[in-house]
């Protein structure tokens, strides 16, 4: 099956490409990019996708998402999560290890791989935990797990509290050559916190989760990284002060990677109080705004945007965290933490591009080439011979978020009812069309068009 | 909208004087009486009556004011709720003769509400009703004991009593829509 994606603006930061052209796919890999030409007439065995006026880029790579499978299939499964990913333009997912049971043994790694091969719509790369049972005490058999296919290690959901354990994990990571992804939170400072500590929390009477709880751990782990030269990846950085610590560590030459999320780049703690764009007001205490680390102040948000632009933060990961109604339709204090973000990530981030905060090519780089580099993954590029993982999107089309239409089981998004600009119209994995937007069926002609 | 004066200031004051005499006559004096004015305009009327009774009998007659808003039975017709205020009943009503005073009696429902309020203050020996104007159209079996003037009206007309204390002038007008 060959595919021609014609007439789109091809943006491939890995090759510094940004031009209108035709992308040819043969035998599941990218064949070549040519200048735009008129569509060929009914060639057999060719699927033609008309991408005029749209952007064509490498399939997005999410290094941070929770698929809840095994153990919490009522919230999400590998099948539903990867379908959601495809709708969001993501062709590769690194799924987090805090499943039930956690991914701390070979058997669970292999289960995930089998499920992904059988039912997955996107590529799935499992993470394994740093410590057994995520108890923060004993390291897992990282070499064995890496051999089984774990691409990185993380106790995400929880911090590694013991500095000694953290040091050993980073030292070990040098040998296994996999990143240790850390969730930065000092529980003594964050204990019981439900939202960002500050005037909004004061007004709402909610216990605060102060930025300093994140910053002390970032500082600690960067210091340990500097000494051990381990492979450190900082998950979901959310504060301006945290960005400063990271910036100075880079200036000192410490090597590590760091990420932030679409929601921390676009939302603030005021959303918990009911603030919405365009002067609208929603009811306060919407549990869809409850996330860990919490939404921070606008000053923090702006610092994160600048850091993404400058490269102080390498990449953006969604931290997709689906939950069922029973975990979210309750009091704010009782609700689970997490935002279902795969299907809104690109559109939300495009808002920053539309606003002029950074360019489209830079954004795509942070979602493709950088994640591939940080985690040593294939993909993130459209160079000839690369797997044909492609995302096609219309950067200007407006749509209103309706979580009931999500492919993800997780309908928990604060963006419900919000209008975004940017629609993923088609996604290919290995040259196969795995997602075609229901309102864009006319984009495709020729063979291989999936049934409606 | 047109207003027609049916009682001038002089007519009004004469009617009140006559009512005062009738109260004295019927009750053989003013012993054991309490005047209760129904807000809003019943209150200044009760005040005037109390002053006249005091002149006639050389005795002070206790006087109070009743806010009946909390006892009304009207269904919602408008969104606005009238402001409720405290009643002021300075003496016990038990075993006394209460003379309820209001400016206009119409359907009788306000008087019914006032009777409920009075019962919550105690058990009077009897209750009599004095009104300046009876405009007809009763919906309950309630009749005044003392009437200033009987004025037949149409349902869509309004009877407005104006008093110096509240409106700067004494008169009664019928307002046609």
């Amino acid at each position, binding site marked *: 099956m060959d595919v021609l994606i014609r007439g789109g603006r091809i943006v491939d930061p890995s090759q510094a490409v940004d031009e209108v052209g035709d992308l040819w796919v043969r035998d599941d890999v990218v064949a070549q990019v040519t200048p735009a030409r008129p569509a060929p007439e009914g060639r057999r065995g060719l699927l033609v996708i008309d991408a005029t006026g749209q952007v064509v880029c490498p399939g997005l790579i999410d290094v941070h998402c929770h698929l809840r499978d095994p153990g919490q299939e009522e919230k999400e499964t590998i099948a539903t999560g990867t379908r959601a990913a495809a709708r969001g333009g993501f062709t590769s997912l690194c799924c987090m290890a805090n499943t039930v049971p956690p991914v701390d043994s070979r058997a669970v790694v292999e289960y995930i791989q089998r499920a992904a091969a059988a039912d997955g719509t996107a590529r799935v790369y499992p993470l394994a935990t740093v410590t057994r049972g995520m108890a923060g005490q004993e390291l897992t058999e990282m070499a064995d797990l890496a051999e089984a296919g774990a691409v990185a290690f993380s106790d995400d959901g929880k911090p590694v509290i013991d500095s000694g354990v953290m040091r050993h994990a980073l030292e070990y990571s040098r040998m296994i050559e996999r990143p240790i992804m850390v969730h930065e939170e000092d529980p003594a400072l964050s204990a019981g916190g439900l939202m960002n500590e500050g*005037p909004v*929390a004061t007004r709402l*009477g909610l216990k605060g989760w102060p930025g300093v709880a994140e910053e002390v751990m970032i500082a600690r782990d960067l210091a340990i990284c500097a000494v051990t030269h381990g492979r450190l990846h900082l998950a979901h950085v959310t504060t301006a002060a945290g960005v400063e610590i990271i910036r100075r560590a880079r200036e000192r030459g410490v090597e590590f990677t760091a990420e932030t999320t679409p929601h921390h780049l676009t939302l603030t703690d005021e959303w918990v109080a009911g603030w919405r764009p365009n002067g609208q007001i929603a009811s306060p205490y919407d549990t869809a705004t409850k996330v860990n680390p919490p939404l921070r102040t606008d000053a923090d948000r702006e610092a994160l945007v600048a850091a993404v632009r400058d490269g102080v933060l390498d990449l953006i990961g969604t931290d997709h965290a689906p939950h069922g109604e029973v975990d979210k339709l309750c*009091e704010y204090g009782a609700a689970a933490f997490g935002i279902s973000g795969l299907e809104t990530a690109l559109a939300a981030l495009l808002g920053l591009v539309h606003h002029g905060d950074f360019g489209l090519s830079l954004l795509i780089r942070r979602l493709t080439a950088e994640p591939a580099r940080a985690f040593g993954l294939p993909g993130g590029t459209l160079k000839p011979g690369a797997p044909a993982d492609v995302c096609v999107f219309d950067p200007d089309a407006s749509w209103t978020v309706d979580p009931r239409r999500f492919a993800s089981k997780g309908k928990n998004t604060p963006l419900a009812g919000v209008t975004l600009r940017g629609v993923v119209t088609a996604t290919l994995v290995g040259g196969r069309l795995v997602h075609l937007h229901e309102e864009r069926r006319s984009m495709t002609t020729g063979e291989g068009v999936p049934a409606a | 909208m047109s207003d027609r004066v049916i009682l001038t200031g002089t007519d009004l004051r004469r009617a009140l004087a006559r009512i005062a005499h009738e109260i004295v006559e019927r009750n053989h004096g003013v012993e054991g009486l309490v005047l209760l004015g129904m807000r809003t305009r019943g209150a200044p009327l009760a005040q005037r009556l109390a002053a006249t009774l005091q002149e006639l009998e050389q005795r002070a007659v206790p006087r109070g004011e009743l806010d009946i808003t909390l006892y009304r039975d009207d269904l919602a017709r*408008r969104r606005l709720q009238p402001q*409720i205020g405290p009643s002021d009943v300075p003496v016990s009503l038990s075993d006394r003769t209460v003379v309820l005073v209001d400016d206009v009696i119409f359907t009788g429902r306000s008087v019914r509400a006032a009777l409920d309020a009075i019962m*919550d*203050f105690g058990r009077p020996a009897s209750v009599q009703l004095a009104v300046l104007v009876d405009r007809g159209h009763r919906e309950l079996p309630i009749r005044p004991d003392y009437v200033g003037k009987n004025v037949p009206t149409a349902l869509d007309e309004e009877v407005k009593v104006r008093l110096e204390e509240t409106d700067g002038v004494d008169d009664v007008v019928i307002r046609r829509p």
Partner: protein
Amino acid sequence: MDRKDVLDLDDFSPDEIALVLDTAEAMREVLSRPIRRVPPLRGKTIVNLFYEASTRTRISFELAAKNLSADVVNVSASGSSVEKGESLVDTIRTLQALGADVVVIRHPQAGAPYLVAPHLRGSVVNAGDGCHAHPTQALLDLFTIRRKFGRINGLTVVIVGDILYSRVARSNVWGLARMGARVILCGPPTLMPDFGVNGHRAGLPPVEVCYDLDRCVKRADVVMALRIQRERQSGGLLPSLREYVKLYQVNAERVGQARPGALVMHPGPMNEGIEIAPDVARGSHSVIEEQVTNGVATRMALLYLLAGERSGLAVA
């Protein structure tokens, strides 16, 4: 009153607050009668849904409802709704099906009343949600102050104690600011929340923060003492209750430094000898008992305005 629910004072205009206080004045008179009962809520059902143990507030609401001739049902649910098995939303839906006209809810979690209000056709009254708000307490405090001074505008109110965990403080900040009073919050820094620069960023009214009670009490027309819970000491927020008493107890000496005619208030229940000295609690400046009576009147006013049969400008 043009609202369905009373969840917090932050969305009350000064006119609305004045309406409640004026109506409470009338209700106060009803409470002085031999028969303290009026009929406007006859046939209405008021449910007290209390997820936190409370005696005074629950009884106050119950009496308020009964004085208006309403039927009252008390539901006390201990522990979190999740422990009980039935979710808060399901509980409200059940109450709706049972015919509740008003649900008065007290809950240990901030925001709980906001979760349930959309699911009830009738009115939701917040009787205290976690550390967030206690609007009826603030209304009765405003009523008490207005009765004593004839006004609220221009007065200085010092609220002293554990501000961080206090819903009474938060609601009073809103109410007092709306009515034109100046608010000074006093307490140890570990128990003082972040109000932001000038308190404006989150839309909070401007407040003055002071750690030295002896200094700010001199400007006080009202001193409002808040309860200190013993857990604050074991939680590490206070070195000891003894130190708290020394620095922040509302005692006779400090009250003597306040402005002439100053009031001493407390939302109750009191820890006499801790946040307030026993002689001050019973002294001539104290209006604490009046607050309790005013509480019934204020809650009667609120229930009447929310659920009372609306009377039009009816015919006589």
